[in-house]
């Protein structure tokens, strides 16, 4: 007994204070729940990424090739020559700190190295050391040698950034920190250090056309289940076609929409809408993935994965392409596809076959966002809705980082939601539109092993949801992104509770009147519609 500490001694031994060393001198500690698993060699080989090997991110020895440093610095030099923006972003930061508290990972984890300025500084310190004259002075000039520890630190924090670009909104110089992360990841990939969650889906996508590795017959049979469910819920039998040559439109959406809940409910919404319109469109089992994890790997990989969309449009001979609800898919389509794999001069300038509206914003890419398409239909009075079918739903809307900051798509989804729901509430101003907070799982961070990190990264978003739940009784978080639909349910479950997640076209599908006088007692989730039975009796 005498050797045991007294309670008071125990308490006084607790050191509340973290180390007070400079960031350059505080070695990185890989915290459980914060780091991704290492990519497997067979997947790396499949997508031609070099130096694949069996390794673990917690190993002391990462088995880097002997000349790893040379490869890294040569790669960096190439990127600096190739992308003027990269050199500019390395040079011009004045460390004003405007970005520091804008990152959801910093706000959630409280780790200063997740301040965008400091995360970028991990790479800048190497840039200064090897690519500037003043860097020869070393630490005093903010430079440091590239060592294995420095590389590990860069790796650790490069996968704690979702490339959401919220910080760049506040940077007075317009530095896009997401692009710095992208460059860091390109360098990481030169050394075979891609994560499992990114390289696995990439290999699947390259092999079969989608992240889940679904083959054509599996995709078709999944649709058959969905079509049966839809008929049971709505009485309408839809007849989607696959790989049909000569269709007017090709429709591309993330594969999660036809494989995982709640994305499948959104997909049912698309199916009902297209059926109602009698749209001449086809699905593709080859271009069966809107998502593009190449964006999280390297620009060459992004180009390679993206190329199937135009290739399939050409093969099928469609006029233009319609795209579903997805976040980073649209960043690639909107900002990079045209210059990477375009010009798609074999396609026509998109014109809605129903309203005749020319989508001039998509004149060059030839690809239209589904909410633009649906908003135009509603604006032209082509659709009828029974909004009361969504009366049990009080939605708010989460702007996905990529569709908001990447393409400025703010009004269309809101217009659609307000057309199909009676009770919509916005979250606070500094958490939506261009200032939207990330879900915490974008850019390939939807890995199970980093649940803690993702929940903390999603805290600012969930905090705003909690506010509108308490203030306005919001019970549904709607969004237009497949990653959001996958990760927001556990996020709101942990932080908020009793709030569900849906895609915008699930709400459309619920409210859409397919035939005059139709009776709908079940929603697209197969749940009874509250009040509908009584209403019919009254009628």
């Amino acid at each position, binding site marked *: 007994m005498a050797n045991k500490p007294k309670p008071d001694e125990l*308490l006084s031994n*607790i050191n*509340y204070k973290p180390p007070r060393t400079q960031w350059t001198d505080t070695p990185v500690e890989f915290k459980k729940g914060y780091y991704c698993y290492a990519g497997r060699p067979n997947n790396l080989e499949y997508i031609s990424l070099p130096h694949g090997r069996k390794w673990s991110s917690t190993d002391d020895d990462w088995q880097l090739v002997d000349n790893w440093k040379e490869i890294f610095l040569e790669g960096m030099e190439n990127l600096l020559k190739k992308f003027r923006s990269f050199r500019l972003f390395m040079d011009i930061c004045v460390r004003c700190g405007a970005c520091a508290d804008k990152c959801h990972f910093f*706000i*959630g984890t*409280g*780790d200063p190295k997740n301040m965008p300025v400091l995360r970028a500084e991990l790479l800048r310190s190497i840039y200064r050391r090897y690519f500037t004259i003043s860097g020869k002075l070393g630490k005093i000039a903010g430079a440091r040698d590239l060592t294995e520890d420095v590389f590990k630190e860069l790796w650790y924090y490069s996968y704690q950034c979702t490339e959401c670009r919220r910080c760049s909104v506040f940077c007075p110089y317009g530095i896009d920190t997401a692009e710095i992360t992208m460059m860091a990841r390109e360098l990481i990939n030169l050394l075979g250090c891609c994560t499992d969650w990114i390289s696995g889906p990439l290999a699947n996508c390259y092999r079969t056309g989608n992240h889940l590795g679904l083959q054509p017959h599996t995709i078709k049979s999944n649709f058959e289940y969905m079509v049966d469910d839809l008929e049971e819920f709505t009485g309408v039998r839809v007849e989607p076609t696959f790989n049909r040559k000569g269709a007017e439109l090709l429709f591309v959406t993330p594969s999660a929409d036809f494989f995982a809940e709640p994305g499948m409910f959104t997909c049912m919404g698309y199916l009902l809408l297209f059926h109602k319109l009698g749209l001449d469109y086809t699905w593709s089992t080859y271009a069966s993935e809107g998502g593009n994890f190449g964006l999280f790997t390297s620009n060459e990989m992004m180009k390679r994965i993206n190329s199937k969309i135009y290739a399939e449009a050409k093969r099928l001979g469609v006029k233009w392409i319609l795209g579903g609800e997805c976040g980073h898919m649209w960043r690639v389509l909107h900002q990079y596809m045209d210059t990477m794999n375009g010009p798609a001069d074999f396609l026509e300038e998109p014109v809605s076959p129903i309203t005749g509206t020319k989508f001039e914003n998509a004149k060059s890419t030839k690809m239209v966002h589904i909410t633009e398409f649906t908003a135009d239909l509603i604006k032209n009075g082509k659709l009828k809705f029974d909004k009361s079918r969504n009366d049990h739903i009080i939605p708010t809307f989460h702007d996905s980082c990529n569709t908001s900051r990447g393409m400025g798509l703010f009004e269309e989804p809101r217009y659609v939601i307000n057309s199909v729901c009676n009770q919509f509430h916005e979250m606070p101003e*500094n958490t939506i539109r261009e200032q939207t907070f990330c879900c915490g799982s974008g850019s390939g961070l939807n890995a199970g092993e980093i649940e803690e990190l993702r929940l903390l990264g999603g805290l600012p978003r969930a905090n705003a949801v909690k506010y509108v739940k308490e203030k306005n009784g919001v019970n549904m978080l709607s969004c237009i992104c497949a990653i959001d639909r996958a990760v927001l349910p*556990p996020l709101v*479950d942990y932080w908020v509770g009793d709030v569900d997640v849906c895609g915008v076209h699930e709400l459309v599908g619920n409210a859409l009147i397919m035939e005059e006088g139709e009776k709908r007692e079940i929603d697209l989730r197969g749940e009874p519609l509250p009040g509908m039975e009584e209403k019919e009796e009254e009628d």
Partner: protein
Amino acid sequence: MKIEHILLEKKQVIIKKWFDLILETYPAETAKFMKAQRNRFGNPVGHAISEGIEGLFDELLQGMDHDKIALFLDNIIRVRALQDFTPSKALGFIFILKKVIREELAKKIRDNKLFEELMAFESRVDDLAQISFDIYMKCREKLYKLKASEAKKLTSIIMQRANII
């Protein structure tokens, strides 16, 4: 003079010191931000702590309403259960209040011979700690449940299709 009166008089000083010491469990740069950023949506963690400890302090002095206490504690602990803290460090913020009060009120307690009242008050702080253990465990259990259900979800659709579940 009752200890509650003294605590009420010194409320702002105690809460400020309690807040500052809790922030010292974070790196200096982070603590600076959590103090400076007043917007509750821009700084949810700082907001939960400052609102929470004030609410807890009021409850310690007034009613010890279990539901209110649990709510304030939950808002703080839900974050710290995920952040990079051991369980003792995650919940240590409760005990910091004892340290603050002992330091701030040492003279007054001695002069007014309020040791017994102090002990009674500190027992109430210990009650907070007990409630905190439950909340902390609930949060961690929730985290593990989420992880488990995420893993299940990966295979559930395939199993449903095959009529296994």
